C-alpha cells in the first residue's frame, strides 16, 4: 500500500482523549499525527466549562502524575478553583475548576503545537486501512491515505452524531459541526458491536441580560488548589459563579410541554446519563421537588456568555427562551446558544483489552466517549493510557496497565472493559474499592514513578516529585518522633486548648488523630527545623497518610483474603469451552469480556462462585504444568 504520508501513531479526534493520546505518544518518541475535523476546536469543552469535581479531580491529578497535560492546562486557564469536600476526610476531597473555555482551547492547541514529534492534521477520517487484522493506516475524506502502525480512535459524540431540539433532528457531531458518519459505518463493517447513547447540554445566556443580584454568589477558594503537581500558583483572575433555583410554575410549564421534548416523544432511543438529567427528566422523575438548583457559570473572562448549568434540555429553542425567563433573575435573559440533546454511537468496550486495544484489530485503540464513558476527565485518562499503549505497541513493548487498587484510572478502565456500559459511564469514588488510599494529594506518589519510566515525566518534574516525597517523609518521621510529655512546657497549653488529658506522652501522629486537632496545631508543635523545610501541603499529605494508614491496613486484612487470587493471570486466548464443568452461559460471559486476571473474571457480573472455582483450579493446574 502506498501512503501519502506515514506516522507511527494516528490519533483521530482532538478532544480531551485525543489530545492526551497524541501528546503522550509523541513525547514517548512515536511520530504522531492528530487528525481532527477543525483545528480551531482542539480541546473544546463541549458541555460545561469545568474540570474536576469529586473523583474527576482525582483523575486529573493522576493524569498529571503520569505526565499527562490536562492538569497543567486547566491550571493556566481556570477562573474559579474550589477544593470540594473540605469538611470531609482528605481521601474524598477533590479539586474542581471553572475554565475559560476559549483560553483552555488556545492553551491546549499551543501545548500540542509545542510538542516535538506531533503533527496536527485537519481532515475527516472515513475508513481504517487493515492488513492481516492489523491496522496500517487511515483513509481521509479527501482520499489521502495516511499510514500508521497504531491508530487511536477518540471521536467523542461525533460517530453518527444526531442532534435533537424539539421536533427537529439533524446530523451533527456538536452544534454547528459535522458528524463522522463514514468512520462509524466502517467500524460496524469490521464487526464491532455498536450501541447508542445520548447526552445533552443546557442553553448559554447573554450575561448582560441577567439580573445578577437575584442569585447567590459562589466565591472561589481564597487559596486555590491547583490540579498539576507542577503548578506553583494560579495566575488567572478568579471569579464568582452564581446559584439560583427553578420554580414550581416553571416545572408545570415544562410538564405541560413534554410532547415537544424528543426525550418524551420517543424520538431519542439512546440512553442518557442518570447523573446529568435534563430539566425535563428532573421535573418528571422528581415531581414533588419544589425547586431545582441551577448554577450560572461564566464561560470566560472575556465573554458575556454564561452557562446555565442544571438546565440541560432538548426542548425547542423558542420554548427554551420562555422557560428560562420564568427563572427568578432571568426574566429578561436572552439565549445565545440553545441547549440540545445529542445521540451518538459507542463501541462495546468489552471488545477492548485493559490496554484499550481492540481484540478485533491489532494496533487499534479506542478512548473516550466511543467507549461509552462521559466526562472530560474520564476521556482524558483513557486517551493518556491509549496514547501510552499505542506508543508501546509501535515500539514492541508490552502493554501498560494500572490496577484498581492503585488508581481511579485503573478503576475506570477495568469497569468499562469488564462490564461494558448500558448508560454513559461516569467515575465515582464509590466505584473504587480502595478509595481511602486513592487520594488526590498522593496521586504523585502512586503514579509519578510510572510516568518517569514511560518517559512522560521530565527531569524538572521528577526532581520536584522526589523533593516533595522527601519532604513528606520528613514530615511523617517528625510526626512519629515528636512526642509531647506531661513534663513539657507545651503539654499543658495543648491539653487545655483541646480540653482533655493527653496521657503521659503523646506523639504528634497520635495527637493528629484526635478530633478537633487542626493542621495548624500540629504545624506549631513541629520542631522548628522541620517546620521550616516542609510546606503546609506537605504536612497535610503526611497527616493524611497517618490518618488512613492503620485503617487501610486493617481493612485490607479483613477484606483482602476474599480476593487473594486476584493477581493470577489468565493467559490470552484461553479457550473457555475446553474447561470442563463451565456451563455455556458462563463460557459466553467469559468470552465476551476475555478477562486477563482472575480478579477481572471475579468482577464479571453474573459469573457464579462455582464457575470461578473451576476457573481457579484450571488456572492453578496450568501454572503447575507450565
Amino acid at each position, binding site marked *: 500500500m502506498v501512503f501519502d504520508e506515514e506516522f507511527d501513531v494516528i490519533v483521530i479526534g482532538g478532544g480531551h482523549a485525543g489530545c492526551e493520546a497524541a501528546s503522550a505518544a509523541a513525547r514517548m518518541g512515536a511520530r504522531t499525527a492528530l487528525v481532527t475535523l477543525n483545528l480551531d476546536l482542539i480541546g473544546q469543552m463541549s458541555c460545561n466549562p469545568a474540570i474536576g469535581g*469529586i473523583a474527576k479531580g482525582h483523575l486529573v491529578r493522576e493524569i498529571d502524575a503520569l505526565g499527562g497535560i490536562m492538569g497543567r492546562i486547566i491550571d493556566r486557564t481556570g477562573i474559579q478553583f474550589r477544593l470540594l469536600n473540605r*469538611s470531609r476526610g482528605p481521601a474524598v476531597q477533590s479539586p474542581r475548576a471553572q475554565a475559560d473555555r476559549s483560553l483552555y482551547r488556545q492553551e491546549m492547541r499551543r501545548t500540542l503545537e509545542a510538542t516535538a514529534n506531533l503533527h496536527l492534521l485537519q481532515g475527516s477520517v472515513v475508513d481504517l486501512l487493515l492488513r492481516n487484522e492489523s491496522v496500517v493506516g487511515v483513509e481521509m475524506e479527501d482520499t489521502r491515505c495516511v499510514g500508521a502502525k497504531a491508530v487511536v480512535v477518540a471521536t467523542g459524540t461525533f460517530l453518527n452524531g444526531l442532534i435533537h431540539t424539539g421536533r427537529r433532528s439533524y446530523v451533527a457531531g456538536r452544534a454547528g459541526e459535522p458528524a463522522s458518519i463514514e468512520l462509524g459505518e466502517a467500524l460496524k463493517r469490521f464487526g464491532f458491536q455498536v450501541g447508542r447513547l445520548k447526552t445533552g447540554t443546557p442553553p448559554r445566556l447573554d450575561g448582560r441580560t441577567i439580573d445578577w443580584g437575584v442569585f447567590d454568589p459562589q466565591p472561589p477558594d481564597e487559596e486555590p488548589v491547583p490540579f498539576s503537581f507542577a503548578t506553583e500558583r494560579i495566575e488567572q483572575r478568579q471569579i464568582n459563579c452564581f446559584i439560583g433555583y427553578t420554580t414550581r410554575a416553571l416545572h408545570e410549564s415544562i410538564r405541560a410541554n413534554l410532547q415537544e421534548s424528543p426525550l418524551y416523544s420517543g424520538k431519542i432511543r439512546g440512553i442518557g446519563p442518570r*447523573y*446529568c438529567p435534563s430539566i425535563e427528566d428532573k421535573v418528571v422523575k422528581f415531581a414533588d*421537588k419544589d425547586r431545582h438548583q441551577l448554577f450560572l457559570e461564566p464561560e470566560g473572562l472575556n465573554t458575556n456568555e454564561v452557562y446555565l448549568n442544571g438546565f440541560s434540555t432538548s426542548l425547542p429553542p423558542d420554548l427554551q427562551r420562555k422557560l428560562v425567563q420564568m427563572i427568578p433573575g432571568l426574566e429578561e435573559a436572552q439565549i445565545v446558544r440553545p441547549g440540545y440533546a445529542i445521540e451518538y454511537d459507542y463501541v462495546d468496550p468489552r471488545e477492548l483489552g485493559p490496554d484499550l486495544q481492540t481484540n478485533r484489530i491489532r494496533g487499534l485503540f479506542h478512548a473516550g466517549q466511543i467507549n461509552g464513558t462521559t466526562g472530560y476527565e474520564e476521556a482524558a485518562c483513557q486517551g493518556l493510557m491509549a496514547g501510552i499503549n499505542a506508543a508501546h505497541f509501535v515500539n514492541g513493548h508490552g502493554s501498560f496497565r494500572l490496577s484498581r487498587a492503585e488508581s481511579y484510572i485503573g478503576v475506570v478502565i477495568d469497569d468499562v472493559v469488564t462490564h461494558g456500559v448500558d448508560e454513559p459511564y461516569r467515575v*465515582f469514588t464509590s466505584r473504587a474499592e480502595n478509595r481511602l488510599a486513592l487520594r488526590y494529594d498522593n496521586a504523585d506518589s502512586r503514579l509519578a514513578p510510572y510516568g518517569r519510566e514511560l518517559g512522560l515525566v521530565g527531569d524538572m518534574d521528577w526532581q520536584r516529585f522526589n523533593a516533595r516525597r522527601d519532604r513528606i517523609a520528613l514530615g511523617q518521621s517528625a510526626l512519629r518522633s515528636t512526642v509531647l510529655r506531661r513534663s513539657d512546657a507545651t503539654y499543658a497549653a495543648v491539653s487545655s486548648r483541646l480540653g482533655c488529658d493527653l496521657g503521659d506522652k503523646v506523639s504528634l501522629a497520635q495527637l493528629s488523630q484526635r478530633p478537633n486537632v487542626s493542621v495548624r496545631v500540629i504545624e506549631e508543635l513541629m520542631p522548628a527545623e522541620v517546620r521550616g523545610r516542609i510546606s503546609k501541603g506537605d504536612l497535610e499529605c503526611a497527616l493524611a497518610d497517618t490518618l488512613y494508614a492503620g485503617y487501610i491496613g486493617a481493612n485490607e486484612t479483613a477484606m483482602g483474603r*476474599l480476593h487473594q487470587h486476584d493477581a493470577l493471570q489468565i493467559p490470552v486466548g484461553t479457550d473457555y469451552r475446553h474447561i*470442563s464443568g463451565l456451563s455455556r452461559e458462563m463460557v459466553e460471559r467469559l468470552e465476551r469480556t476475555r478477562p486477563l486476571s482472575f480478579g477481572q473474571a471475579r468482577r464479571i457480573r453474573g459469573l457464579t*462462585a462455582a464457575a470461578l472455582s473451576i476457573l481457579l*483450579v484450571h488456572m492453578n493446574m496450568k501454572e503447575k504444568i507450565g
Partner: protein
Amino acid sequence: MDTIVALATPSGRSAIGVIRMSGAGALAITRLLLGEAEFTPEPGKVLLKKIKDPLTNEPVDRALVTYFQAPHSFTGEDVVEISCHGSPLVLRRVTDILLKLDGRLAGPGEFSLRALSNGKLNLSQAEAIRDLINAQTDAAANQAIRQMNGEVSNSVRPIKERLVRLIVPLESALEFVEDDLPAMQLEEMKRELVDILCEVTRLAATFESGHLLRDGVKVTIVGRPNVGKSSLFNRLLGIDRAIVTEIPGTTRDTVQEQIAIDGIPVLLTDTAGVRHSNDPIEMMGVERTKRAMAEADLLIVVVDGTAKLSAEDFEFLERTSERKRVIALNKEDLPGFEDPLVGKVNGGENVFRVAAKTGAGFPELQQAILEAFGVSYASGDQLLITDARHYDLLCRTEAELERALKLLSERASEEFILTHLYNGLRLLGEITGETTTEEILAKIFSTFCIGK
C-alpha cells in the same frame, strides 16, 4: 495465607469427627484452643488433649491432636488435625471456637487448592480434585438456590436492603456535594443502624441455635400420677432406669439422666406426678418437680389416652400452656385409647400419640423435641458447615456495623463509616448474593435528584 478450618470427615453422626486446619496460624490457634501457650508438639505425633472454650474455660471435649509441620503436610502448610468425638454439637462447637480464634472456614476445595499451589499434587490428582470440586460446587449452587428461596436469604435480604438505604444518603453526601440534597438526619440514621445491628445479632443468635444447644437442652417429663411418665423416660433413655409400677406416685423424687438425641445432649428429667400431699417425702418430691419444671427448656406433658382428662391433667396442661412443650398421649397400644384432648387444646399444639411400652410414636416425639430447638432432621448433612459459615459471616457483619455505629456517633467523615457499611454489605452479600456499586448508585439516583 490465612488459616482455614473445615470438618474433614463427613458430617452427621459418627464415632469420630476430624477437624482440619491449615495455614501459618494453625499452631498458634491450637495453642489457644488447648490453653497451652508453649504447646510445641512433635510433628506427626498423636496427642490426647483436653479442649476447652478459651472464652468460658468450659471443657468441650477430649480429642486427639496431630500436628503436621510445613511443608510435610497434605497442603504443604502447617496443618493441625483434631479428632473429636463424633457428635455434631461437639464438632460444631470446636469449629466455632477455631473460627473465633482467627481461623476462617475453608471454601469448597480450598485445602486441595492450597495443596496444588504448593506443588503437593500431581496433575491427575488435581484433575480428580477438580471433578470433585465441580460436584461440590454444583451441590453448593443448588443449595444457594434453595437458600435464595429459603429462610436464610429471606431473613438477610431485608437487612441488606436497609443497609443499602442507609448507605445512600452517606454516599450521596460525599459524592454529590454540589447537589441540593436534603440534610442528613444523623439521629435517625443512628437509630436505624442500631436497629439493623439488632437484627443481625438476633439472626446470628438463631444460627448458633442458641446457648441451649451448646450446653445441651433440659427436657422434663410432667403429668399426673400413673400416666406413664417413667415408662416414657425409660423408653427415651433406652434402659430401665426409673422404677415403673402400677402404683400411682411410685416416683417420689426427680430422676435425671443425660441422653443424646441425634447427637444433641439432652438432660432428661422424670418427675413425681403428685401435685398435693401431706407426706413429707412426697412434699419434697413435689417441690423438686416444681423446680425441674421451672428449669426445663422443654416440657413433655404426658396424658393417659385411655382415660378421661382429670382435674389434675387440666392443671398440668394449664400450668404449662405458656411454656415450650410437647404433649405425649400415652398408652396408644391399649384398648380404649381415644383422644381425650380433642377440643381441649389448640389445633397448633404438638400432640403425639405414643406407646411407651412398645415404642410406637417415639421417632416422631424425638424429632419434635429437636425441632422445638430449631434443629431439624430434614436439613441433614450440610447443616453444620453451612450454619457455621453463615454464623461466621453474621458475626463479622456485626463487628463491622458496630464500628460503623461508633464512627457515626463520633461524626466521623463519611468515607470511614461507609468503609464498614460496605464491608458489612459484602459479608451479607456472601449469603444472599453480592450487591454491586451499580445497585447502590441506582438507588441514589432514584432517591435524589442528582446532577447539574
